[in-house]
C-alpha cells in the first residue's frame, strides 16, 4: 500500500502547489484599503444627480451595489481602452490591479436595504 499512498501524496502536493500559484496570481480586493484610494471616485459617483458633461451629458452611473467582478472588469476595460469615456480612461490608467480590486471590493458592498 506504500506506492498508492506515495502517489496520493504527490498528487496532493501537485494540486496544492498549483492552487497556491493560482491564488498568488489572483489579486484580492481589500475594501478597507480602498478608503485611501477613492477620492477621485467620489467627486462624480458620490454626488446625487451628478452628470458627466464631456463628451456628452448624462448621469454618471450608480456603482455602489454592483458586483465586485463587474466593477473590476469595468476599470480594466477603461484601462485597456475597451470603454472610451475619457475621464474614466484617465483615472483607470493610474490604477494598479490591486487598486482596482480594492475599489471594486469597496463599492460592491452596498449597505443592506440600500436602493430606491
Amino acid at each position, binding site marked *: 500500500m506504500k506506492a498508492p499512498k506515495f502517489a496520493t501524496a504527490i498528487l496532493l502536493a501537485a494540486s496544492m502547489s498549483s492552487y497556491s500559484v493560482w491564488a498568488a496570481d489572483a489579486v484580492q480586493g481589500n475594501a478597507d484599503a480602498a478608503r485611501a484610494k477613492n477620492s477621485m471616485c467620489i467627486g462624480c*459617483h458620490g*454626488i*446625487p444627480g451628478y452628470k458627466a458633461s464631456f463628451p456628452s451629458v448624462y448621469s454618471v452611473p*450608480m456603482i*455602489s451595489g454592483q*458586483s465586485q467582478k463587474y466593477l473590476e472588469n469595468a476599470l480594466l476595460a477603461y484601462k485597456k481602452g*475597451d*470603454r472610451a469615456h475619457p475621464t474614466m480612461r484617465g483615472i483607470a490608467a493610474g490604477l494598479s490591479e490591486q487598486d482596482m480590486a480594492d475599489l471594486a471590493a469597496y463599492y460592491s458592498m452596498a449597505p443592506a436595504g440600500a*436602493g*430606491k
Partner: protein
Amino acid sequence: MRGLVMAKRNGGMRLQMESGTFSAAVVGSVLLATISFASVSEAANLENGKAKAEQVCSACHGKDGNTPVDPSYPRLAGQHEDYLRQALTDYRSESRKNAIMAAQAKALTKQEVRDVAAYYASLPGQLIVRK
C-alpha cells in the same frame, strides 16, 4: 408646439365664453398639448420596454434586473435612465466593446433603447450613490 398655439388661441377666446365652455376649452387644449408633446419628445414606453426586456435582457440580467446570472453582468434595476441609454448607444457604436452586448444592442431600434432604459430605471434596485 401646436398644442401651445392652440392653448393661446383658446386663452384669447376666453373673454367671449361662459365659464363652462372655458373649462372645456382648457381641458381640450391641455389634452392637445399633451398629445403633441408626446409625439415630439418620442417618449419611452414602459410597457413595450418591459416586453422587450423580458424577451431579450432578462435571460442574463435577471427578470427583476437585479439578479444577473453571472457576477460579471451588471445590475440594471434602478440605474439612471440616461446612463442605460448611453450604455446601449455605446455598445451599438462599439465605443464600448463587448461582443455579447454589441449584438444585443444592435438588434434594438432607437425607440426600443429608450423603452428598455426607461423600464429598468423604473424598477426597484439596490444601486446607490455612495462616497
